């Protein structure tokens, strides 16, 4: 199967601190892949490197066949990204922000797409509100929309369900599952293991910047294991090491 994303020996150092240490992984097209790890394990740094937001100290990576080091803007042009804790620009309204995204990404027929997303995520009543005045949940809806409005072949999402209420979480999980069925790829980073087990087809566990495990979720299920318990035992063992 074709590869959507491939990282080879990726390392990122901030001074003396090694945030990501020699990580190699590959994600197939049409899969929903979960990057799991406790707080500070390097998940966000990994996503930042894969989307060209930060340069690796060493190693290489390609996303949809584009080299993230040589052409970071090209990568961001092809994928959809929801960064961790990022908010849309303060002084644009929700609708204007989507128009801004559409203009930068050169997305045609934006009005129809905007309307669909406002209805789907149930925030049409907020479309003329300044982004700085939106609640966290609505900002997350807006960031989710900007990541998917151009229907990218690959979306990279840092904590996809954070700030969503249970009803919205359910809706979004269904949307993500349907999205990969169309042959597109989703790469999520999360520490909510139950969600990962429910929606991911493949996963990798990162701890203290090191890759502890990577493989399909089905492999665990076949062994009668659950992702949360597998994750905890692996991380706890690594802590003792």
């Amino acid at each position, binding site marked *: 199967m074709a590869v959507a994303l491939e990282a080879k020996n990726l390392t990122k150092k901030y001074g003396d601190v090694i945030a990501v240490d020699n990580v190699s992984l590959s994600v197939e097209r049409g899969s929903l892949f979960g990057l799991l790890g406790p707080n500070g394990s390097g998940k966000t740094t990994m996503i930042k490197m894969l989307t060209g*937001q930060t340069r690796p100290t060493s190693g290489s990576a390609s996303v949809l066949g584009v080299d993230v080091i040589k052409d970071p803007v090209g990568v961001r042009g092809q994928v959809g990204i929801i960064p961790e804790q*990022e*908010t849309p620009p303060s002084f644009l309204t929700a609708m204007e922000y989507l128009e801004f995204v559409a203009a*930068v990404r050169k997305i045609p027929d934006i009005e129809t797409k905007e309307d669909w997303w406002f209805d789907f995520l149930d925030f049409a009543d907020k479309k*003329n509100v*300044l982004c700085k*005045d939106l609640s966290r949940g609505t900002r997350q809806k807006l960031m989710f929309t900007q*990541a998917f409005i151009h229907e990218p072949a690959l979306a990279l999402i840092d904590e996809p369900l954070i700030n969503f209420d249970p009803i919205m979480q359910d809706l979004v999980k269904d949307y993500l599952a349907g999205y990969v069925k169309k042959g597109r790829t989703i790469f999520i980073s999360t520490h909510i293991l139950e969600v990962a087990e429910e929606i991911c087809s493949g996963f990798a566990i990162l701890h203290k910047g090191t890759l502890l495990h990577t493989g399909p979720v089905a492999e665990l299920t076949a062994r009668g294991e659950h992702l949360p318990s597998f994750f905890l035992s692996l991380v706890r063992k690594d802590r003792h090491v």
Partner: protein
Amino acid sequence: MFELFTNMVKEEWRVHSTMFGSLSFALFPVMIFGIALMGSFLIPLMRTTLPAGNLTLIIHANYLMLGIMVGGFGLLGNEVMNRRFGQASLLAFSARSLPISEKFIFLNFVIKDTVYYFFLWVLPFGFGYILASPFTGVPLEGALLLLLTLTLSFLFGLCGVFFLSAIYARSRPVLWLVLLALGVGIGGLAAMTGTNPVLFFPPLLLNSAFTWVNFLISCAVLALLFGIAIVLFNPESVGSEKTYRDSFAPLMQRFSFLPNPPLAAKDTLDLYRSGSLIGQTIFSFLLPLAVIWFFLSLLGPFFPPHGLLFIVAVTTGVIASTMYTWVTMFDTFGPYACLPVAVSTLIESKLTTFAVLQAIPAIFIAVVALFSGEAAYLVPAIVLGISVSFYAVGVMAWLCGLSPNVLVYDVKVLFVYLILVGIVLTIFTSVAFANPYFALSAVILAIPTWLLVRKAKVRWDAVDPGGF
């Protein structure tokens, strides 16, 4: 109480030192002291064109304005911090998570602001003036009195903002009523006495004739304003959701001739909706330039003929170059990080918006030329001012990328900036002094400007785009 107070002081220090660098910020009161000390020696010269009362008025107005600005920042602190540093909060907003009442935190906040800014702004100025007093013939009591009345001016600004914002948070109609009552009261007083109402400003009254009764009245008014502000204080925002009709698409259409219409439209909406375009134009551009023009006009006899206009043009150019900081102050890289936008594209777009804003300094220089009877040199003065502005912004973009608000306070960056800009200013001011029409030669600065911008784009594309 004391622990909260000291932590708030530490927090205020860290906000400033993070923005400007510890050393640069630590030297700030020293700079204020130096300006006051040296400025005191200019008083005899200023008195030849400006009555002493007016000078006192200007200084007190400045400290009143400072109090207003400090109070305003305190109340908007969270918003400013979040724009600059990403997710951040201040201790003043911690009542939700700590077993301390909001009013108690606010009381500490007010005391912290008073003490902190007294040592940062008021005391260094007063101390400089006091130290110069034996040489300028000002009696020591007069210098000490100025320190007292400047402190009071600052406090009137600070507690005035707290008072009005506390009312605003409770009820907007009541705020308008209070403002109306103030206007009617001041207007009535002026009509009854036939005196400029500004002269009834308590610190000014005290400065012109100190009496203990007036001093106690000033203190009582301040205590009343602080008291009402603390009683009415409500840390929650009014909570209104601002809505706007879609202005982005039409604006982008209008900017279709620019290199990056969507980015230019976004910058324009940022400036307009934040109120910064008017606020910054008045407080960061027109007000300082008016003061500089006033001071430079005192030195008019020392310049060659027509020299004052070109000095004003060059100074306007340097101050106009800081408009680049206006357009970079709203963003973090975050919203762009998920889009196919390179740092060099953002630099280009911010510089485009900057270029549009250069209409403001051009108009200012034209007004100065017309008012000073130098209309014949209007074009060379505008060319000089705007060329200097573009050159200085080229240097700024090369040295600071998208973070001029932060990096320009880095001592090394500031040093290189001063050298590169200083040399050009000296050369072109001298050229303009030699012959006003030679100032047109400043267009040659377009070449180094273009090279600097090109280097800036390459340099900052190669660096991880952090927050700016």
